[in-house]
């Protein structure tokens, strides 16, 4: 029998994968894609919980998450474009200079 716990577990696994990518990749675009996996892991949970509780609120939250993801990606990619233009590479390495 398919229960809510299955969806929560799926969300957890996706979240962990995204977290690993977020911490281990150096390519800025890859890092942003890992963030997308994190957001989608949360989406799985939100939608599943909403459906199993028979409410529309979760869907509304999911819509908000998608909208915020769109804004985040637009700004993030614009930033990365500038990083690339300043340094010639789009990885996190040149950003170490920020601490100096």
């Amino acid at each position: 029998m398919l229960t809510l716990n299955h969806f929560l577990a799926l969300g957890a696994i996706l979240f962990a994968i995204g977290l690993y990518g977020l911490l281990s990749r150096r390519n800025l675009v890859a890092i942003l894609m890992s963030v997308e996996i994190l957001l989608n892991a949360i989406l799985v949970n939100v939608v599943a919980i909403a459906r199993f509780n028979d409410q529309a609120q979760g869907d509304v939250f999911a819509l908000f998450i998608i909208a915020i993801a769109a804004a985040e990606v637009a700004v993030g990619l614009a930033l990365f474009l500038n990083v690339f233009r300043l340094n010639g590479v789009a990885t996190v390495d040149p950003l170490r200079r920020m601490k100096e």
Partner: protein
Amino acid sequence: MLTFVVLSVLMIVGAVGVITLKQPVHAALSLVATLLTLAVTYVTLQAHFLAAIQVIVYAGAIMVLFLFVIMLLNIQGDQPQPHFRWMQIVAYLTALLAAGAIAATAFLSPRELPNAELMSEALAGGGAAAIGEALFNDFVLAFQLVGVLLLTGIIGAVSLVQRKATQTAKDERELSGV
């Protein structure tokens, strides 16, 4: 149940592809596959409206933006550098810990929750109307704020990218001695 297992396996394989494939375009495609599988999972949960939004906004717009930037920058694969290796181990441990913690909470939760068959009439078949009612009654302020956020995002993105264009124009003017 079988559908769920197949979809989850596809989704996890796609997500692993995103973080392991070296070529960014392949990683992005893998993410698209993950997003589409997720959309199908929404369909199995009767969240048709959200599935359509997921495909249109996430797969159809956000990921295309990613591919656009990857192609504009012509980003090549990432070579791991020695001084960054320790981060990978930290990442493994954190991820495992997080997965363990969340999965434990999920499975040890004593609450018995209702299953998908008990869904109400309003939410069956996508529930665009129910979502709209919730969105424009209970969450109307949040909705407006998201609109403002998106506008800010657009302005921010445009201004960030635009700066270089005026810079180029200035450089050109200086070069041509005007």
